[in-house]
C-alpha cells in the first residue's frame, strides 16, 4: 500500500449517476491485484473528513480507475471534480480475488450494480474466460457490458424491472447456467461483488451446488488500514466466530467462512 496525491486524468459520466474516474498513479498501478480497493480522500470536502473506499476498476500502465455511483455527500463532491484536480489515495488495499490458474476453474462472476467494477480486472487476468452475471434494478444499473465484451467475455444481465436481460435478480440466470451448464460443474468457481443480500444468495447457491465461491464483502469503512475496527464482519473461527476487518483480512472471503447476520 502507498499513500499518494494523485491527479485526475479523465472523469466521465458513464450513465445517469455513474461516473468513471481515471487517476494517474504510476507506482500504485503495477501493485494492484483484482478485487483490491483504493481509499480516497476527496480533498475539497472540508466538513466530511473520512476517506471513501472504491473497488479498483481498470488498471493502465501508470493509471488506475474507479467506477462509482453518486450516492451521497462524498461521491457528490467527487462527481464535480475535474481533470487536473488532485485526490489523496491509499492503495492498493485489502486481499483481492484469487485469479484462476491456467487450466483451472472456469470463473462465473456475479455482480450487483457497481459491484461490476470490482470484477473487470479479475476477468481480464483470468486465463480461462467465463461468464459474468450482472444484476440491477433498471437497465441503467447494468454497467460495463461493452468492457467485458471487448475482452471476450459473455455477459448475462438481469434487471428487477425487466427492462434489460432477464427479469428478476441476478441469481436467476446464474442458477439456470449452473443447472444446465455445458461446463462441468465440478470445475466452476463463483466470484461475487454487490449488495450483502446478493452475496448471501450467491453463498447459498455455492453451498447448494458444492461450488467454491469468493465474495467481496462491503462494510462501513473508516481508516481502511486495520486500525479503527469499524468494518468488521463475523467470520467462523473454530466452533465459534470472530470479528475480522474487511479492509485488512478481507474484503474477499471464501463464502464458507462467513457467518451471515440477519438481514438489516
Amino acid at each position, binding site marked *: 500500500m502507498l499513500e499518494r496525491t494523485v491527479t485526475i486524468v479523465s472523469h466521465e459520466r458513464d450513465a445517469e449517476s455513474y461516473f468513471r474516474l481515471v487517476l494517474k498513479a504510476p507506482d500504485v498501478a503495477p501493485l494492484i491485484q483484482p478485487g483490491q480497493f483504493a481509499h480516497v480522500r476527496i480533498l475539497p470536502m472540508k466538513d466530511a*473528513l473520512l*476517506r471513501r473506499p472504491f473497488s479498483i476498476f481498470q488498471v493502465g500502465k501508470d493509471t488506475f480507475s474507479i467506477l462509482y455511483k453518486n450516492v451521497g455527500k462524498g461521491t457528490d463532491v467527487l462527481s464535480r471534480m475535474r481533470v487536473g484536480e488532485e485526490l489523496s489515495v491509499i492503495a492498493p488495499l485489502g486481499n483481492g480475488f484469487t485469479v484462476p490458474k491456467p487450466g483451472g476453474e472456469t470463473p462465473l462472476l456475479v455482480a450487483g450494480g457497481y459491484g461490476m467494477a470490482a470484477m473487470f480486472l479479475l476477468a481480464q487476468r483470468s486465463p480461462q474466460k467465463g461468464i459474468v452475471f450482472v444484476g440491477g434494478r433498471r437497465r441503467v444499473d447494468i454497467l460495463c457490458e461493452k468492457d467485458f465484451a471487448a475482452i471476450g467475455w459473455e455477459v448475462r444481465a438481469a434487471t428487477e424491472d425487466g427492462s434489460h436481460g432477464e427479469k428478476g435478480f441476478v441469481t436467476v440466470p446464474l442458477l439456470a447456467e449452473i443447472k444446465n451448464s455445458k461446463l462441468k460443474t465440478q470445475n466452476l468457481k463463483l466470484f461475487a461483488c454487490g449488495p450483502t443480500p446478493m452475496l448471501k444468495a450467491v453463498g447459498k447457491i455455492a453451498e447448494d451446488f458444492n461450488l467454491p465461491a469468493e465474495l467481496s464483502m462491503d*462494510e462501513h469503512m*473508516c*481508516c481502511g488500514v486495520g486500525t479503527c475496527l469499524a468494518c468488521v464482519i463475523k467470520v467462523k473461527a473454530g466452533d465459534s466466530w*470472530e470479528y475480522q476487518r474487511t479492509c485488512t483480512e478481507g474484503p474477499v472471503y471464501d463464502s464458507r467462512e462467513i457467518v451471515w447476520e440477519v438481514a438489516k
Partner: protein
Amino acid sequence: MNLSVQIGKLRMQNPVTVASGTFGYGAEYARLIDVNQLGAVTVKGIRLNPVPGNPIPRTAEVTSGMLNAIGLQGPGVDGFIKKYWPFLRELKVPTIINIWGTTVEEYAEVARRFDVLGGVGALELNVSCPNIKEGGAQFGTDCKLLSQVVAACRQATTLPLITKMSPNVPNIAVLAKAAEDAGSDALAVTNSFPAMAIDIHTRKPKLANVTGGLTGPAIKPIAIKLVWEAAKAVKIPIIGMGGIQSADDAIEFLMAGATAVAVGTANFYEPQTALQVIAGIRDFMERNKISDVREITGSVQLPQK
C-alpha cells in the same frame, strides 16, 4: 531547539503522540509513516481478557467529526503481548499502553502484568470510554471510584500512569485533582463525547450501539477548554487531545496548558498528520524564536481583570 518533554518518568523526543484507538497497535501505520518519528505510540485499550467488541455499524461520519462505538475490541493482555508487543518492543520510541477493566482489581491486575513485562513506556488508564456497559466511564465520572482505580494501579506498578479523563463531567478540575492526589503522573484530556446520530430515512440510530463517542475537529474547542480548566487544577503534565489535525491545533492545546498532544481521528483520514504536526510545531518555534517547546505550555494570555 528542544522539542522533548517529560510525562512523569516518560521522556518523549517531541510532544506528539497518537490517541488510543486511532493507531491500532502501531504496526498498521508503520507501512505508511515512520512511527519512530513520533513522541510515543499509544495503542488501543487492553483489558485482561479478549473483548469481541460491539455489533456493526460501529462508526458514523458527522459534520467535522465522527461517532464511534467500537466497544474496545481487543486481544486481552496475553494476546497483545504475543501478537503486538514484539513489534512495539523494537521501536525506538516508547509505547503507551491504554488499559481498562470492569473492576478496580482488574485495572490493577492489568497494570501489574505490564509492569512485569518490562520495556513499557507508560500506562494510560482508560476511565472514560463511553461505549461499554461496565467499566470505562463510570470510573471516570465518580471521584471516589477514580481515586480507587488510580491508587490501585499506583500500588501495582512503578510505570508512569496517565489518567485519561472523561469530558462528561460537571467540573473536570475536581476529578483532575483527585487523579493527581491518587498518584497519577499525568492526565490525558480528553476522551470522546457521548453523542448520537439518526438516519432520518430509516429512523434508526446510525450506530448499532445507539450512542457513541464524538471525535474529530467538531470537539476541539470544548477539549481546549477542558485542558485549560484541568491545567489550572493540577501540577502534573497534561496530554491534550480532541480534533487535532494541524500544528496550529496542537499549539493551541499547548497554550491552553498541555505539555504534549495526541493526534486522534485525523490518523484515520490523513495518516501523515502526526508527523506534519511535529514539523509544524518546529516551524512555529523557529518563526517565533522559541528554543524550548515547554515555553509554549500554558502560555495563553488571559485578559487582565
